[in-house]
């Protein structure tokens, strides 16, 4: 039992849980920003959603996802369509895309922030990336969140310092829009899997990672979340999934993504 429990890391559990977000997408462009979300999208395409589309994170759409490590400059890849940055926007605005991103802040409305912290628009306390493509992504297509360190600094009690993406906030809902026009899907963290299908699109707990308690999730979330009665445990990676992940990341960069590379099954407390 103990050897089975240590057979997969938390990063691998999160990759498998995040891949589930793309299961029923069909023929859309999946964009995982960051190594673990990219592995998750690649795993989905290599297993249960072969119709999915992916890019090489630069300028080509691929028939087969690239490995995230161990590739040489100029190495051949299964490119099938030119997909430069300008064309990415054509795809974004068509809605046929599902992005998985890792915001610095997420609030109770599902709004998120990667731009800046504190201060003002004129003088932020901490300047980060800028809004990038978040405004356009969030109002055009499905988006999921990947959170490597679930805590109240990410899931903030107030509104995000800079609202980069539209969420389920009645005060900001544009004229002529319904909440159903906004499609925020899964939230995969190092503690659990959640979605935004609680009452009035409240954040809702779906699955707990092995060894994590409901209380731990509540304590580490800066706002109230919906706790349904049927919260199940996150499904462990299968041997086949572990093989696919290993082939996609031969240099095991995934082991360096979470602090201390914890095991997938944690001892409570």
């Amino acid at each position, binding site marked *: 039992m103990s050897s089975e429990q240590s057979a997969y890391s938390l990063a691998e559990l999160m990759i498998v849980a995040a891949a589930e977000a793309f299961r029923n997408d069909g023929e859309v462009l999946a964009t995982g920003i960051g190594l673990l979300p990219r592995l998750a999208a690649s795993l989905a395409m290599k297993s249960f959603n072969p119709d999915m589309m992916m890019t*090489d*994170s*630069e*300028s*080509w759409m691929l028939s087969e996802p*690239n490995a995230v490590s161990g*590739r*040489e*400059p*100029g*190495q051949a890849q299964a490119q099938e369509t*030119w997909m*430069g*940055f*300008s064309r990415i*926007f054509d795809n*974004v*605005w068509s809605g046929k895309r599902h992005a998985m991103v890792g915001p610095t802040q997420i609030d109770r409305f599902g*709004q998120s922030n990667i*731009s*800046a912290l504190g*201060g*003002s*628009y*004129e*003088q*932020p*306390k*901490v*300047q*980060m*990336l*800028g*809004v*990038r*493509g*978040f*405004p*356009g992504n*969030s*109002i*055009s297509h499905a988006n999921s969140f990947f959170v490597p360190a679930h805590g109240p600094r990410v899931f903030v009690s107030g509104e995000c310092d*800079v*609202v*980069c*993406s*539209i*969420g389920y*906030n009645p005060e*900001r*809902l*544009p*004229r*002529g*829009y319904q909440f159903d026009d*906004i499609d925020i899907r899964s939230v995969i963290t190092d503690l659990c899997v959640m979605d935004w299908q609680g009452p009035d699109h409240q954040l809702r707990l779906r699955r707990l990672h092995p060894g994590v308690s409901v209380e731990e999730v509540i304590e580490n979330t800066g706002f109230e979340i919906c706790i349904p009665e049927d919260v199940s445990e996150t499904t462990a990676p299968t041997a086949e999934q572990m093989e696919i992940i290993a082939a996609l990341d031969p240099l095991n960069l995934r082991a360096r993504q979470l602090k201390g590379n914890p095991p997938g099954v944690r001892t409570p407390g």
Partner: protein
Amino acid sequence: MDKVLSPQAAVAKIESGMTVGIGGWGPRRKPMALVRELLRSDVKDLTVVSYGGADVGMLCAAGKVRKLVFAFVSLDFIPLEPFFRQVRQAGEIEVMEIDEGMMLLGLRAAAWRLPFIPTKIGLGTDVIRNNPGIALVDSPYDDKEWVAMPALNLDVSLLHADRADRRGVCQVKGPDLYMDDLFARAAKNCIVSCDELVETEHFHAGDEARYVFWERSMTSAVVPIAGGAHPTSCSPLYGFDVEHFQEYSACAGEGGFEAYFDKYIGGKSEEQYQQSVGGLDAIRALPLPVY
């Protein structure tokens, strides 16, 4: 027709207070030799429009920028541009922070001589709250509100291409053009530096002309500078210079931009600059990034 100019003569067309668009994307195919020439000039109070990297960081740090129109400023493998960060956190520049796609639409509106292009991008976010200059408008065709993304009209664009001829036919063979064609079309005066100056016959062979993305009437000046995108990449000719970017970033912690400027830019010719980073052969040998 001959549009070839020296870097000095080309950049001399830029005046204080102008709006300058800069092509490329983050650490990729930026017209850095032209940016260095601008840094050596006494021009100031610029409004800069860019998918920003070190071009924006350097111009901000040197006090050349009054207002920045941006969606991000990043060196990619160093996610946060250190000098841009410092200048923002000191509240030293005015900003118009918009979505990457809004920037595309603003440039396209300027290119098409339209006052704005309607879009839903930005609705429900702080992009609209923070930029009262971006109007919301009604549609004659539905009951929704729409963002009227204003044209980003540019006085000058600075671009870097792989090759150009004397008449301004410019070729980009890298896998991505980014928004360079829109920057070329949105500007009154488009200055293009290039790695190689070629005869017009170059474009006649095979499919060479397929890699030309704007007509020559959009190009005002051609500035041949081999290696002119360094330290950014000019795929497939050379990759970006990781070590140089690391040294540049370290200056933000110690020495400041002045230390970097004094070592590499101030009072130096582009030739001297290239010698100080190992020479053109070393630039050409920089490996392409793997993503």
